[in-house]
């Protein structure tokens, strides 16, 4: 009887399960990189076959799940990121095979798609499928490194911006404003150009080859740090004026615990994940533009010679100029657009799913 009093019955909303999704995201995200353990096997067919099977299973599960939940936007997003995801999986499981195929120039030149070459060959007689796969892997790696660096630096700087410390806050705001003012591509070009010229000049080209991808990631990550920092700043300022913080404080909860556990971990995580997704998409585009810019400007030395979708485009400028052998440019353009669209669609869905609780 007692439970029949007004107000006692809870509004019947299912307990939120969105947070269950969260641990799955990094697993799916880092799976392709982990596939590089397959490199110990000998047979190319085995390595590539296993990678493709595994990824297909993951995608089948994700797509079925989203269809069942009627999240059609997510289905579209997942379908669109298939090329880049499979690229990185396949390339990291059998890196040597594909990288050698991108270096061989003895194939017939500008062969149209079909037969042995699924996407044809380019002007210099390289397999376009292999270059796209390696380029996709590099794009994925650069975007991953950039996003992680933006998060790692952006969160503490955002906290410093929101905090009360004058000196720390000023330093943080100078850093943030520097990256806000300097155009992103300009900054990245300068950093990479200087580094690559220096490395090639002083040490060896080997250094360039090893550090080219991480340096690109670092430069892009640094330049996109303000977007993370500003989000953290706003969110922390807004949350710390909420009344639950006062309530926790007057129950003697440690202010460090309130900041890191209640505010940052429990109430900022979803924003960060969503922002990271959008950063990832944006970085793919920047990386592509970077490859293109270096190829037409600095040549091999600029990017450190790593393959990128932008670089393929730049090398095949002829086909755009003379409108001939269009498959050479069509495929890199297509995968770039698909990947960015797909990642953004997934980000949109994440916004919808994760922001349900506010």
């Amino acid at each position, binding site marked *: 009887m007692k439970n029949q*009093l007004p*107000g006692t019955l*809870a509004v019947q909303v299912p*307990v939120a399960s969105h947070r269950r999704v969260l641990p799955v995201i990094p697993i799916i995200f880092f799976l392709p990189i982990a596939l590089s353990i397959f490199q110990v096997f000998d047979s190319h067919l085995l390595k590539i076959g296993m990678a493709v099977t595994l990824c297909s299973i993951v995608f089948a599960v994700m797509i079925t799940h989203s269809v069942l939940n009627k999240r059609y936007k997510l289905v579209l997003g997942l379908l669109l990121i298939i090329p880049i995801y499979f690229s990185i999986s396949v390339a990291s499981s059998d890196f040597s095979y594909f990288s050698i195929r991108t270096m061989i120039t003895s194939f017939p030149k500008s062969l149209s798609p079909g037969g042995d070459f699924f996407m044809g060959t380019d002007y210099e007689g390289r397999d376009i499928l292999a270059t796209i796969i390696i380029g996709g892997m590099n794009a994925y790696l650069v975007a991953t490194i950039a996003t992680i660096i933006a998060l790692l630096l952006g969160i503490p700087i955002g906290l410093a911006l929101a905090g009360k410390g004058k000196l720390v806050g000023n330093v943080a705001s100078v850093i943030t404003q520097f990256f806000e003012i300097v155009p992103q591509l300009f900054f990245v070009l300068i950093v990479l150009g200087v580094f690559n010229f220096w490395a090639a000049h002083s040490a060896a080209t080997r250094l360039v080859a090893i550090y080219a991808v991480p340096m690109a990631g670092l430069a892009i990550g640094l330049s996109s740090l303000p977007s993370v920092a500003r989000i953290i700043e706003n969110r922390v300022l807004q949350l710390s004026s909420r009344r639950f913080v006062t*309530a*926790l404080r007057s*129950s*003697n909860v440690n202010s460090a*615990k309130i900041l890191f556990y209640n505010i940052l971990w429990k109430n900022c995580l979803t924003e960060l994940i969503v922002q990271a997704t959008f950063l990832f998409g944006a970085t793919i585009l920047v990386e592509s533009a970077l490859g293109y810019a270096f190829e037409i400007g600095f040549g091999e030395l600029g990017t450190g010679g790593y393959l990128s979708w932008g670089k393929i485009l730049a090398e095949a400028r002829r086909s755009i100029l003379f409108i001939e052998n269009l498959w050479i440019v069509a495929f890199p353009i297509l995968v770039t657009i698909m990947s960015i669209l797909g990642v953004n669609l997934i980000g949109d869905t994440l916004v919808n799913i994760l922001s349900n*609780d506010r």
Partner: protein
Amino acid sequence: MDPIQSSETNTTILSVKNLTCIPKRTGTRVVDDISFEIFKGQSVGLLGESGVGKTTLFRAILGLLPGSDWNIKGDIFIDDISVVGLSPRKLEATRGRKVRCIFQEPAQSLNPSLKIDRQLVEAITTITPKLNEKEAWGKAAQALLDAGLSDPEMVINRYPGDLSGGQRQRVGIAMSLCRQCSILLADEPSNSLDSLTVTELIDTLKRLKKQEYLGSIFCVTHDLSVLKALEADRVLFMHDGKLYESGSIEETLSNPRHEKLEEMVNLAKTVNRHLGDCEGNEERQFADTLISIDNTNFAFQKKSLFKKKQSLVLRDINFEIKRGEFLALVGSSGSGKSTIGGLLSRIFTGFTGEIDFSGINLKKFKNRKEKEKFYRSLQVVFQDPADTFDPSITMRQNLSECFKAMGLDKRQISSSLGELLELLLLEERTLDEFPRNLSGGQKQRFALLRAFGAEPAVIIADEPFTHLDLIAQNRLIEYLKRRKQDSKNQLSCVLISHEIGIVSKLCDRIIVIDEGKIVENNLVDRIINYPEHKVTIKLIKAAKMLGTFDSFGSE
């Protein structure tokens, strides 16, 4: 013919026919097939718990529900003109002349950067364009007088920011009263206004209705005492989007026709009975001092471009709270009583003077142990405590985080949780829900649970009788009463309220605060029977009118 002049008794002023409002996003029937009529000269109350669709109905009548978000079916007639689907200009013409309304927060309906007299004159000339400015100001002055502002000239050439909160509320009300109308709509007048303003408002409304300045009154509220003071002719009761007719207010109180309504009335009566039991307690003697406040001043720090402005919120506060004593801080809104609560609970720091809590200096703790001891023995029930929980973790996590920080170990936490859940009528499963999945009332009871959990020596409750729902109020009073009798582990309590009637039944001593100063500090009997300061007299008058001194519908 102007309907206000007509002497027919059965003129329909507002009629709602089969009204259904459905928000497009969720598709729930918030207002479900409602029909009713309001005749000229009636005062009608719409009663219902929070969240049953009262405000939606109110806004539908005013045409304030945007068509992009709401599916509205049915018809609303104001003086035989159908207002559903009318073009904005025509709607303005009908609504402006016939309907006036008082919104939940009248103080906020003023434009902060326009002078008040200009705003009022503008409001009047929009509806009746033929008036010149002087005549319009005359009307505005009359409305200000009606709204309880004794000196209308004082608002001339002043901005809303120059007035106090209570004065702003009155100006907002004056804006609603500045023209004759066939019907006045009021939305939850008791929610945001303090008891002084509410009683004055109700007085004014009754008088204006008698003078036929207002045709009829339609008052939306969840507060039975407001309807009682208004002497409502008819009470409509709303539950789950449906409307029920329940006769006059006396009938409603003595013979409620719907079971939910009966529950509401009964709850209100139990609160009163509980309070009634407390009355007539013998004067208690207290030995040792628990909290003492000496010469305390407090000002909020304002950041200004040129100089640091400081206006003192509290001046020369001196009082003591004995162990086991129940103390009430009473004053009208904006008097600084909540600030004192904030100082005692260390939400605000940076005061001058000394506050001493059984040997602990509140300015600075000596060590961690002292801090833990302080926070464990002093608990706050916040004003409107429903949103004082972290939205992203479950109730159990919320509570155990607080209890752990207060120094309770695991076994103590689980034992006190089990005991208190029972006491507060909460189900076990609600512990594992997120705050957003619980109703406001449940969250309020969880806030009480958090306050009771560590068996504190002092509880500071900020406006518990206006913002808590009736179940939570019942539980709070019951708990306070039980701990009052408990001589072993004595509880002191500070109740911050503007309802002098209710607190006088619970407390031993009353402190009346006005404009940041203590104006009276004495035992309850003395203050009630021989009030000295004019604020005290006003508060007592307001409480008598709202009937908080006596019980509802004597059984």
